């Protein structure tokens, strides 16, 4: 950007979203920044969810008055990056005395590089893990998941943990209402692309034909097909995951929190909520594998809008937020795995007094995480595939149809998308 006049406004606006408790963490961050940099002012613009955030961001950019900074997942920033709405940070990063690129996990940094420019700096570098209810495992005498376990182990464990009210193992696959008798399900997992992808990768397959310039989904390859088949069989063949009705009635996170779900595939974000659980003990385990250890990246980053009128001030806040102090504050909420390597390895994140005891699982996974393609039409692709996968899991659509639909319905979206 052009050099700012000396009296550029010190006040900047930061657009974030989250549930009230999460927003509270950002407020803490902002007030800490206020103390660290007297005179600087940060106005927090709070959206309640991703849709709200994107609506706000796009209308305000179009209306000519965008926020200076916003926080966004790498899966969604592509559309803004492609449209040239985000300021490159390379110059500022090079000059910075507070942060350096090396401070951050490269996997997270890489996700936010667009056409050889660092557009955003990651706030976190989370990944998928298996949350499990230790108390329940002990009660039923089933072995807890441990590093190196496989997809088959997952199925076995989940089957062993799917119980009825009297504690007997049942299959939640019987027709009409029979499944209602399941009191505890073995596993909870959302039928979405970002849950399926790591298993495809682990099985040696690819979800798209070209990671950098994808043109189609490749579930027709044997490895991907097998991983997908195993995934969608969780419900109708094994009956270890709740029915769609049950999920609508009570989502997996609260089912887990209420002690009726043995394992849950989730990212770091549910940790904050789960820390309020008092009735049982829980922990995390790494993802099961098909052989290769591969995880999937979950990462949000701060981006400066190109239309910002206070880019320098925004940068100063950004430096603070992804720097050690800011990262420690956010890590304290438990919500994120810090992207700042140093902070991630510190007790701010690994605090043994706070569950999960096994937080190291998240850090170990980072080395093997992979991002989904950052294509500008990815949000649309996720929406389209979500519906198809949902029907595949709960309704048992034929695998060939599922694979065909995934391909056919997303091809135009890939074609329209812009890639880094």
């Amino acid at each position, binding site marked *: 950007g052009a050099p700012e006049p000396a009296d550029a406004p010190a006040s900047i606006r930061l657009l974030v979203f989250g549930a*009230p408790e999460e927003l509270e963490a950002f407020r803490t961050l902002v007030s800490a920044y206020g103390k660290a940099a007297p005179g600087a002012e940060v106005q927090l613009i*709070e959206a309640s969810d991703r849709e709200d955030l994107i609506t706000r961001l796009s*209308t*305000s950019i179009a*209306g000519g008055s965008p926020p200076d900074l916003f926080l966004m997942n790498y899966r969604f920033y592509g559309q803004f990056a492609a449209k040239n709405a985000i300021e490159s940070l390379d110059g500022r990063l090079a000059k910075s005395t507070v942060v350096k690129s090396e401070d951050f996990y490269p996997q997270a940094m890489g996700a936010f590089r667009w056409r050889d420019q660092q557009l955003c700096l990651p706030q976190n570098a989370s990944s998928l893990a298996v949350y499990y209810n230790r108390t329940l495992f002990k009660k039923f005498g089933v072995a807890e998941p441990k590093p190196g376990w496989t997809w088959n182990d997952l199925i076995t464990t989940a089957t062993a943990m799917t119980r009825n009210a009297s504690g007997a193992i049942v299959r939640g696959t019987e027709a009409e209402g029979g499944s209602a008798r399941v009191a505890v399900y073995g596993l909870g997992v959302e039928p979405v692309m970002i849950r399926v992808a790591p298993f495809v990768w682990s099985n040696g397959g690819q979800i798209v034909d070209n990671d950098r310039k994808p043109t189609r989904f490749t579930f027709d390859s044997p490895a991907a097909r097998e991983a997908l088949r195993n995934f969608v069989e969780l419900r109708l063949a094994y009956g270890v995951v709740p029915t769609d009705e049950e999920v609508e*009635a009570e*989502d997996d996170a609260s089912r887990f929190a209420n002690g009726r779900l043995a394992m849950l595939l989730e990212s770091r974000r549910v940790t904050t*909520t789960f820390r309020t659980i008092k009735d049982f003990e829980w922990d995390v385990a790494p993802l099961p594998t098909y052989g290769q250890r591969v995880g999937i990246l979950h990462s949000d980053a701060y981006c400066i809008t190109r239309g910002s009128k206070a880019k320098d001030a925004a940068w100063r806040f950004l430096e603070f937020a992804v720097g050690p102090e800011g990262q420690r504050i956010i890590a304290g909420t438990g919500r994120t795995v810090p992207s700042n390597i140093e902070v991630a390895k510190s007790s701010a994140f690994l605090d043994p007094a706070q569950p999960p005891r096994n937080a190291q699982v998240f850090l170990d996974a980072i080395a093997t995480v992979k991002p989904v393609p950052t294509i500008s039409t990815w949000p649309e692709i996720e929406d389209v595939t979500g519906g198809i996968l949902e029907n595949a899991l709960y309704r048992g659509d034929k695998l060939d149809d599922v694979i065909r639909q995934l391909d056919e319905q997303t091809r135009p979206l890939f074609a329209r998308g812009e890639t880094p």
Partner: protein
Amino acid sequence: MRWRSVGAVAVVAVFLPPLLMLVAGSLRRPGLPPPPGPQLLPDPMSAEGYTQAVDLGGLVRAGVNSVVVAAVAVPVSVLVAALAGFALTQLPRRLTAVVVVASLGALMAPATALLVPRFALFRTLGLTDTLAPLVAPALLATSPLYPLVYYLAFRALPADLYDACRLEDLSPLRTWWRVAMPLVRPVTAAIAALTFVLTWSNFLDPLVYVYDRDLFTLPLALRSLATLDPTNFPVFLAGAVLTTVPPLAVFVVAQRRFLHQYRES
């Protein structure tokens, strides 16, 4: 008439339960799993949802904002609608037809189609991040339906009354104020109540035009509560109850006036 009362009871029996469930739900203790069977009264009962909702959602501040917006927007709205509706009865028929068609056309424009250009407009006027954009629809009578409702109401008054006013050399404005308005009080009560509700529950406008958390209105605050995890549903429902109480009160008060009619000579 007895059957009317029976009907009234039936109406209450159908329309009230959703709201009762809302209240019942809000009284559950946050963090508990959902109850296995129907519960009219939650067990245990707790007002914790309310305290949490007020804290987490910043409902006090949002409430004040909502009140400020409504306090300006509702009277202005009613005024705009009533003035326009009256003018339509007096202006030449062709002009009236144009405005009526234009109003119907305006009704058709979906809110989403107006967000972005309006944003640009408000920014040009320097009004973003103030409460002004939330009050602005009042200039439009909140909904173009209301001037039309007023128009029909004023048109139904006996023409002789307007003639009597013309004889007394009353200007249109005074005729409107002294004669027309008092005679359509039920309509005014109804429209005031409806604009209040529309203004109060306006969600898209604040979402787009207001950044400052201190300027959030209740629906926006409520929206952030809606992202709480499901076991905290009572918190959200408590927020919904608190947000719903004022419009309910307005409706109950206003409906008393719907009935009041002057029988004309």
